[in-house]
């Protein structure tokens, strides 16, 4: 698999540079057009898939052997290969039919991979929610293609693209909303994210890496394909809708992430946050397109696309790092970790690179794309429309808050998991991950560093891709600026670091200060929960924690015999959004049951009525 992805990577990289279209047409096999071809947008995502799959496959070589029986290993490899291939199929498809077939294989293969780990009741429940929501998303996408059909007369992408320019406004709105909801569910924007923090934690770590790092990006691909390639933008409110979705997902995603102490769930919520940032870029691009500022639109879209690639790199790196932690300590609960940096130095170093990248520190890749999105929002002030002029620069504040909170969250993650003293026996006896796992993670970390320090090489193709999608006459000048200044900053950084290091002296180990008292234990350290307490307090309204404090006996509140406290955080989405919806569906189904009497005469009546009404329809319509 590793070799296959490497080959794919090389081939697609070659084609992207030459912008050469390759076609494969097995449509003779089916009555529907089942065609594949690669255009620059598809190629970009194909490169993304291959770049992430290769290190993940390398990591899995050793991870899978250590965790699963021989029979399960075979299943895992087969499904993993199917999963990656189907994702490649989605981005390479050039007809709606091929797209949907690959899309469905992708969803089912990922569900199968989740089952590798076992199928207890709880897992089945979470998996069911995943399957349900992913199929709701698929239904919306199928509906979107079907809405196109009367206008394009074919599911071939070329025909759809041609029809896209001349759609009536109502159809255009319906199409956009269907694509937004369908791909938004798969990408995990709030409030359609419900499956994401459930499905990612129960998958094996390499699979979580692929699901979060790559599969979510396929949804982004679908949305870009529809909104930019087929519909070529639309009225400004399309953009504002995407902006609101992005801002809400970004902000709530990071706030939920801070409150988590299960590392995988935390990272899953950070995927919601980063998808939010990507959607902010896409939304800005749509707004700019609606107002005719195509160069700014290109900057925003290029930022969003680069962030898609960057997130694929660092998020899969972080999930693999989590896998290495789980491999060594058998837990991903932050409250049981600690002190891993001394025990797993390489994993710690690459994990730290992932952390620096995800919070967008300069010299790491996340910065470049967030910078581009930042700058494009600043460009909103050049528009003449007063709403856009006021709103777009203000969103920079939202982005800044997301960035600040993400930094707080990753101080917590790295500080609690890797620094300080171990909080459990397992963490105490942790050991470094095996070579293949380290190598996989190091490849991804190297990717993060290279894009972060030398962005020029990567910006050129991505900017020209964005330019062609939005029809911008020139490349945004800002991208040249960042490409020029970052290597200098990196050089100055290293030089200064070398100079300042001279000031360091010999060190001596002494006990940690314990206020003069003996017996400092690891339980006295700040935990993940206590670290996030101030932020949870300040943003208390977001969490709506259900606290229960029981003091026994009740008549002696100040001298209790026992106190028990627990707090449960249920998200309001289930309670206020999904529960009424599900109740409504069940109620409607109950009403429909009245049709099913079980009486054969009634069914015959239905048939006669259908026949008569069809004949009437034909008579009247003909």
């Amino acid at each position, binding site marked *: 698999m590793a070799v296959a992805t490497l080959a794919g990577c090389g081939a697609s990289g070659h084609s992207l540079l030459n912008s050469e279209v390759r076609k494969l047409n097995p449509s003779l096999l089916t009555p529907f057009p089942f065609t594949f071809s690669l255009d620059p947008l598809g190629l970009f995502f194909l490169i993304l898939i291959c770049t992430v799959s290769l290190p993940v496959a390398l990591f899995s070589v050793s991870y899978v052997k250590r965790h699963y029986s021989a029979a399960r290993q075979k299943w895992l490899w087969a499904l993993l290969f199917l999963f990656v291939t189907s994702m490649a199929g989605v981005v390479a498809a050039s007809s709606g039919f091929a797209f949907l077939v690959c899309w469905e294989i992708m969803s089912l293969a990922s569900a199968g991979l989740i089952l590798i780990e076992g199928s207890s009741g709880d897992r089945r429940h979470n998996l069911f929610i995943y399957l349900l929501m992913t199929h709701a998303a698929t239904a919306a996408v199928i509906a979107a293609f079907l809405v196109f059909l009367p206008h394009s007369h074919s599911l071939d992408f070329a025909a759809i693209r041609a029809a896209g320019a001349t759609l009536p406004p109502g159809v255009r709105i319906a199409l956009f909303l269907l694509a937004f909801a369908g791909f938004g569910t798969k990408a995990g924007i709030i409030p359609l994210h419900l499956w994401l923090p459930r499905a990612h934690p129960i998958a094996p770590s390499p699979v979580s890496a692929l699901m979060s790092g790559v599969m979510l990006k396929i949804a982004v691909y679908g949305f870009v394909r529809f909104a930019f390639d087929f519909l070529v933008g639309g009225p400004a409110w399309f953009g504002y809708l995407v902006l609101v979705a992005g801002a809400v997902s970004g902000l709530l995603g990071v706030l939920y992430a801070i409150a988590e102490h299960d590392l995988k769930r935390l990272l899953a919520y950070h995927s919601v946050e980063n998808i939010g940032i990507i959607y902010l870029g896409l939304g800005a691009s749509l707004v700019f397109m609606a107002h005719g500022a195509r160069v700014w639109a290109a900057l925003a879209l290029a930022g969003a696309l680069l962030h898609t690639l960057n997130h694929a790199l660092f998020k899969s790196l972080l999930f693999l790092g989590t896998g290495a932690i789980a491999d060594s300590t058998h837990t991903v609960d932050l409250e049981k970790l600690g002190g891993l940096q001394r025990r797993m130095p390489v994993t710690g170093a690459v994990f730290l690179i992932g952390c620096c990248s995800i919070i967008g520190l300069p010299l790491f890749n996340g910065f470049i794309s967030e910078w581009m999105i930042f700058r494009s929002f600043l460009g909103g002030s050049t528009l003449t429309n007063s709403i856009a002029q006021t709103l777009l620069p203000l969103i920079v504040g939202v982005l800044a808050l997301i960035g*600040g909170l993400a930094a707080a969250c990753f101080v917590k993650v790295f500080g609690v998991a890797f620094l300080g003293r171990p909080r459990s026996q397992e963490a105490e006896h942790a050991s470094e991950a095996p070579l293949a796992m380290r190598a996989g993670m190091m490849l991804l970390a190297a990717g993060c560093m290279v894009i972060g320090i030398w962005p020029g090489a990567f910006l050129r193709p991505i900017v020209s891709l964005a330019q062609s999608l939005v029809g911008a006459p020139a490349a945004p000048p800002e991208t040249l600026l960042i490409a020029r200044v970052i290597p200098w*900053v990196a050089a100055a950084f290293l030089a200064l670091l070398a100079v*300042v290091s001279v000031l360091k002296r010999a060190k001596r180990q002494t006990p940690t200060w314990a206020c003069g008292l003996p017996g400092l234990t690891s339980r006295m350290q700040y935990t993940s929960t*206590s670290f*996030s307490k101030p932020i949870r307090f300040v943003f208390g309204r977001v969490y709506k924690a259900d606290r229960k404090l029981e003091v026994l006996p009740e008549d002696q509140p100040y001298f209790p015999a026992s106190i028990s406290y627990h707090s449960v955080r249920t998200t309001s989405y289930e309670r206020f959004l999904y529960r009424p919806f599900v109740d409504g569906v069940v109620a409607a189904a109950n009403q429909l049951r009245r049709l099913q009497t079980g009486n054969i005469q009634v069914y015959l009546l239905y048939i006669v009525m259908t026949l008569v009404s069809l004949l009437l329809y034909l008579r009247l319509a003909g």
Partner: protein
Amino acid sequence: MTIALGVLQVVLLVIGAPLLRGIVGRLKAVLQRRRGAPIWRPYADIWKLLHKEDLVPPSASGIFGLAPLLLLVTSILATAFVPLLANSALLGSTGDFILLVYLLAFGRFFLALGGMDGGSAFGGMGASREALVSSLAEVPLVLGLVAVAIQASNASVVGMTEWALERNFFNISAVHLLAFLALGIVALAETGRMPVDNPATHLELTMIHEGMVLEYSGPNLALIEWAGAIKLSFMAGLLIALFAPWGMATTFSPAALGLAAVAMLAKTFALAVALAVIESGIAKLRMYAVPDFLGVAAAFGTLAVIFTALMKR
């Protein structure tokens, strides 16, 4: 010539930083009718600490020693954005304010990690509180800079200074006033000053920055102290450059540069007096009142950005 001037400015900000701290301390002492330490005291402190050995907790990893280095390096890099004597800086025209804001975040991130590495409750407590304050301070910082950048139609610090230089004091807009208020509050929070944090306390109920660096000693502590001083002088330099840059040299002649240096020193001294008055006159806010304080700053920043759109019609 510009490069030489840029290097000179960085050196001035980096080497002069402890002096500014000493002056602020002395001014506070005067206001509180104490004798106070000499203004050169911060240099002596750093010199003393640099010659001690580093004491490292047993649980600490490499991050513990790396954090002060990275903090100092990013602080020095940040000073390269600030025009001081003339309107040019090493990174002032090519690097924009977003890069600047994230460079500051870089050092802060690693210092918070260093605090967590000691394995005591204090480090985690300081890091946790610092995480709250700095993530909330990010919003007014960025919004204030966005407003000024929109006014100047330029996102680089030099570009923004250029815009202000072309106007006189009475010609400057409401946007600048609002942005100045936002950035002024952020400057207090970022440098760990009253009413957000008290640099002179070691009481666990109140400390933020000091809690984070409690395990540090010797050269490590010297680097952190120095970086803190640089951050203060950097903030002062940035506020002056953005909101009151008048008096900067327009030519590279010695007379013009000398005049600019005098003007710069006078303005910095005025800021030091303002800081001393604020610190002596205001009590530290309760931890959970700090978000409200920063919220006020964010409101100023938001208004500033909205006003930029209003001013255009």
